[in-house]
């Protein structure tokens, strides 16, 4: 039995939303954040993200395939989970999940198809036997790779990115809304919550891609493009500043108002969440990467390539810690606080084994990387030299051959 400090309602001593509900927004955040990166190239013409445009789209797709798994694992009756899609009760924020998730999955899958369509056709033509059949199915019966058809692909990609970006924002803003709209829980109930979730999704997505890109470059034995690394650092810094500011504002407003919940929330932060909030979310995952990224961004031109790579990768890893801590502190922290506003339960430790345990969480985190590897085997993320569609079709606003400032 958990220990209670103060008075908690008798049913408030259980953490019903476990580690899986921490993993759910964490993974969805990667989906949204990765899609933001790919959109920066495909939609906003940030050519410096060209080396990772396909990687980020593939990552977004792979994480999306796993995103619903933690929810399913968490349910008391997983076999009834499909009811959320079939018979949604529309006054529930959670009921929107099925629709948002499905629509977004279709958009991302379509965008993947259009981006890789030319290669799918080329591989269908170049291979034999079951491989040929497989790629023929993926080609969906169209083998047109004429410049006109590729131009249409390009327009479709831009359009899908245009729809997908608000879709990604909504998907993750909605995750924040699930918490932010619970008026029973003062630690969750703030209109800032969806915005904080969205911004931290951008942080986690950019940070993750930065780490994957560095690892990918090492794996492929190519140097990471420094223009891309600098851009990652700049955007990560920007989103981290916004995230930390809003996270602090949430607390500061509550403290300054000296509102009723502040008395218990302040105890929560300084006792139960002292390590995960103050140390990890704010200092190790917040302040330190802010400084590291500031160095990379402000002293960019003086930095050696290796220093830039190291500083930005360390900062990105710390940002991943920051976002995980933030998810943990919101989801778990909100349940350590009793709705009596008079008591706190002892810290929650997840099981190691079991359906909602640490091992499953690790598997869920690693599964998208395995999927990404499979993805790369099926649809090479790095195009064959001179063969990729986007080599021929620069994104909107980028003129071919002219590097943007």
């Amino acid at each position, binding site marked *: 039995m958990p220990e209670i400090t103060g008075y908690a*309602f008798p*049913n408030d001593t259980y953490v019903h939303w476990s580690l899986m509900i921490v993993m759910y927004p964490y993974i969805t955040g990667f989906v949204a954040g990765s899609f933001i990166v790919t959109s920066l190239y495909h939609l906003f013409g940030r050519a410096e993200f060209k080396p990772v445009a396909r990687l980020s789209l593939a990552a977004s797709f792979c994480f999306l395939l796993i995103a619903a798994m933690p929810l399913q694992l968490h349910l008391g009756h997983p076999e009834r989970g499909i*009811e959320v899609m079939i018979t949604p009760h529309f*006054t529930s924020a959670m009921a929107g999940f099925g629709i948002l998730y499905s629509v977004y999955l279709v958009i991302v899958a379509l965008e993947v198809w259009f981006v890789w369509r030319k290669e799918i056709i080329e591989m269908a033509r170049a291979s034999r036997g079951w491989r040929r059949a497989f790629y023929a199915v993926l080609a969906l019966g169209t083998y047109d790779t004429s410049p006109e058809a590729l131009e249409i692909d390009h327009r479709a990609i831009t359009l899908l990115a245009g729809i997908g970006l608000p879709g990604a924002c909504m998907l993750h803003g909605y995750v924040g809304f699930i918490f932010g709209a*619970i008026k*029973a*829980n003062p630690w969750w109930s703030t209109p800032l919550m969806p915005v904080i979730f969205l911004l931290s999704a951008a942080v986690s997505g950019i940070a993750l891609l930065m780490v994957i890109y560095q690892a990918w470059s090492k794996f492929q034995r190519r140097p990471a493009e420094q223009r891309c690394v600098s851009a990652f650092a700049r955007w990560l810094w920007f989103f981290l500043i916004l995230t930390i500011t809003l996270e602090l504002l949430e607390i500061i407003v509550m403290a300054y108002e000296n509102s009723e919940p502040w008395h218990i929330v302040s105890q929560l932060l300084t006792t139960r969440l002292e390590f995960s909030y103050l140390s990890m979310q704010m200092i190790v995952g917040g302040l330190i990467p802010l400084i590291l990224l500031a160095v990379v961004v402000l002293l960019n031109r003086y930095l050696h390539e290796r220093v830039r790579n190291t500083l930005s990768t360390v900062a990105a890893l710390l940002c991943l810690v920051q976002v995980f801590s933030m998810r943990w502190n919101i989801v778990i922290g909100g349940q350590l606080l009793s709705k009596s*506003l008079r008591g706190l339960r002892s810290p929650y430790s997840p099981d190691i084994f079991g359906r909602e345990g640490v091992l499953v969480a690790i598997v869920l985190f690693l599964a998208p990387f395995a999927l990404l590897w499979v993805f790369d085997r099926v649809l090479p993320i790095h195009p064959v030299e001179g063969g990729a569609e986007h080599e021929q079709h620069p994104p909107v606003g980028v003129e071919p051959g002219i590097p943007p400032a």
Partner: protein
Amino acid sequence: MDPRSEAPCSAGTAQDAHQAARPHAPSCTPPEVGRRAFLSNALRLSGGALVLLAGGTAFETAGATHPEEGYNWEEHRYAYLIDTSKCIGCGSCVRACRAENDVPDGFVRTWIERYVVGPEGSHVDSPKGGIDGFPPVQTSFTATKSFFVPKMCNHCKETPCIQVCPVGASYRTKDGLVLVDGERCIGCAYCVQACPYGSRFINPSTHTADKCTWCYHRITKGLKPACVEVCPTGTRQFGDMKREDDPVRKAIEGDRVAILQPHLLTEPQCYYLHLDKEVR
């Protein structure tokens, strides 16, 4: 008409269904095979699978039994009245609830809070929900008043738990209760998070949301909830707002009553007499 109106015996949680099958508990009468039942069964056989896929109602999926003979939920609107000045913290209500509803260990459908209050501080506790009464307590401040406050699900009219349920398993009956369809609940615990009163929990046996039902299996037979039945001091009273001569209705309409956490605008249907400001 909502088919649930025909299934009051199955409208509580799975515990209620289980309870109804227990020999010492009041049980629903077995369905008579009349024309209506025959048609209903035939329809269920022919289109049951389709209805299930298309989101059949609780009635269809719960394998519901027929209503208590003569009970019409549109003729009632129940309310609960608690006079905190009368409660002695004996815990009879909590014990009765546990026995009647098979409440799992570690959780409560109803509980009693003890408040010991002074100018310099306050102390609140509820050891095991007050099921074994309350041991003496020492406070570091000088207490000037102390009292007990029974609590349970408030069966709110504008309840967040129904609002947030993603599959509509939590619902409101026409006679004024908030119930959970244990056959439909997916066990996501969103309602548990959304209830400001801490009334809900996830039952570790059924893995579905569980809460006070005001003993729906009893009140649809004209009985009182178990907690009201055993209360030795008349602290807990149960009434019908559609009956003009009902003493609970008269008290709610005529006396100065309070509700818990009124700022949340959930419109609780549990009313309190002599509620102190310390109580949330």
